[in-house]
């Protein structure tokens, strides 16, 4: 009976609904192909060519671009610098954000004020604030070195010396991203049921640290994983501060992945070669996302 009913009058209505669904989704599907899928495919294909903007033709060169990448000192430097930057910014901004979120959550006074202040950098134009940091970091007239001078320390030439430039950029990166992570942690903290703390106390978790270790930290697991992934991806994408303040210098000491791609592709116009770099960049993002899913799958939330 059911099969008869399904064959009869419902089918045309279903077909009509399917047609309307296609019409409603058509603009999105078209644009998705045009601006995401096709260009992604194109970048992979271009990575196998010697295409240069301004020259007419191009030919396929197989893995030549990738072979060149392996020996390219600028690119290797760029990967290494991006890794260092990420290795500094991600853990520091996560630990700081968690600490601030815990302090704000426990604080009764001026909560909204503190939340606003720490979040302010997220809502500020990074290129503009980078310019302010450049002044703060100025070796002779900058407030940071002036302050260090009062303490009897002669401060470094932060953004101008190859030994310190990555640390300077990392400080800006941390300052800019803590508020964002903090807001996510605050949301995670509010979602923890109060009864769990009471239960932990009954079970003998007396100190603040016991309660953190037994309740807060495990319950925050999903948030922490999420914040970690976003922080890593955002650090790998560092570009604005480098382009504005250092242009990869001095002496390639702040050359980072996106900046190198930008230079090769849009300044030297070596589109084929820059496409190969882009494929490496995409591969890094895919691996990071894959790792996140794996961890999410394995680690049950409240382990």
């Amino acid at each position, binding site marked *: 009976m059911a099969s008869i009913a399904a064959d009869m009058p419902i089918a045309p209505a279903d077909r009509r609904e399917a047609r309307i669904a296609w019409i*409603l989704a058509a603009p999105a599907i078209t644009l*998705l192909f045009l601006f995401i899928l096709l260009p992604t495919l194109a970048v992979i294909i271009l990575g196998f060519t010697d295409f240069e903007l301004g020259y007419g033709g191009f030919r396929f060169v197989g893995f030549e671009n990738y072979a060149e990448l392996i020996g390219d000192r600028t690119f290797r430097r760029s990967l290494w610098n991006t890794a260092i930057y990420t290795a500094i910014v991600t853990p520091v901004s996560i630990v700081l954000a968690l600490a601030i979120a815990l302090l704000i959550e426990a604080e009764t*006074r001026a909560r909204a004020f503190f939340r606003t202040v720490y979040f302010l950098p997220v809502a500020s*134009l990074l290129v*503009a604030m980078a310019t*302010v940091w450049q002044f703060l970091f*100025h070796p002779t*007239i900058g407030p940071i070195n002036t302050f260090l001078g009062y303490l009897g320390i002669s401060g470094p030439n932060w953004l101008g010396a190859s030994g310190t430039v990555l640390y300077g950029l990392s400080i800006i990166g941390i300052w800019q991203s803590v508020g*964002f992570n903090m807001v996510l942690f605050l949301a995670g903290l509010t979602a923890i049921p109060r009864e769990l703390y009471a239960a932990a106390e009954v079970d003998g978790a007396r100190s603040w640290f016991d309660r953190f270790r037994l309740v807060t930290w495990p319950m925050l697991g999903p948030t922490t994983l999420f914040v970690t992934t976003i922080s890593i991806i955002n650090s790998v994408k560092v570009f604005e501060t480098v382009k504005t303040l250092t242009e990869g210098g001095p002496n390639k000491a702040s050359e980072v992945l996106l900046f190198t791609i930008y230079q090769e592709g849009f300044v030297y116009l070596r589109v084929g070669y820059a496409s190969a770099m882009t494929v490496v960049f*995409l591969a890094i993002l895919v691996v990071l996302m894959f790792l996140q899913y794996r961890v999410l799958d394995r680690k049950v939330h409240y382990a």
Partner: protein
Amino acid sequence: MTAHSLTLGRMLRFGLLSLGALLFLAPYIFMISTAGKAQSEIFSSSLSLIPEQWSFAENFTKALSRVSMPTLLMNGVIVCALIFLVQVVVAIPCAYAMAKLKFRAARIMMVLVMLGLLVPIHATALPLYVAFDRLSVLNSYTALVAPFSISVFAIFLFLQFFRAIPDDLIHAARLDGMSEAGIVARVIVPNAWPAITAFAIFSVVAHWNDLFWPLVVVSNQDFATPPLGLLYFRAAEAGDDYGALMAATLIITLPLVAAFLVAQKRFVEGITMTGLKG
């Protein structure tokens, strides 16, 4: 726990938070203070925050004369508004079809959306640049807006939200004789305001701040967005005229910061809700 340790702990906590807040605010404090100082005073490198002789007028005049600030801010508003409008108009019907209609392609669309979430503009920029160059649409609002007309993130966010809207509401509207387009406009959209505002904040913050794409497709001041304009200003401002530079950064940072301070609750909610993508 004794009352004594409680107050000591609370004082320590409040002290730490205040110290941190001061450090986080320091760049803004120095920006405002330096924007009011004369060149000679800046070079005396003192830590005093209040200018000895007020030069705000002078610095702001310089900042406004080098680069057309009203044009920059206007471009920023136009580009962000266009991007947001197109994104919403394209994403909402699609998310509705995926969430509420019998749509066979919904599954494969979901896969495409998840794939799309992985691909940032930096990855598609090279082919898009070559194509835009061939079509000679570089240096235009079209070039600035087009690649962002599709936001897979918007589809993803709205999809989650639409699934929670009760089917009965839609059936009732259908019985009243409403078309599917009418349902989207008159039933779905009014019910989806929280998701739409959250996405608006995410989208505007992202595109107002974006330097990469404008840098790629725009090479003259007429179409420069605020971040790019500031880059031009820095280039024109050879040397260390930090007074004028700080005045310019102040003008350019102010609109979004003001918007944030006015609507901070919504901002924080929006960022929490859309936190998925940075």
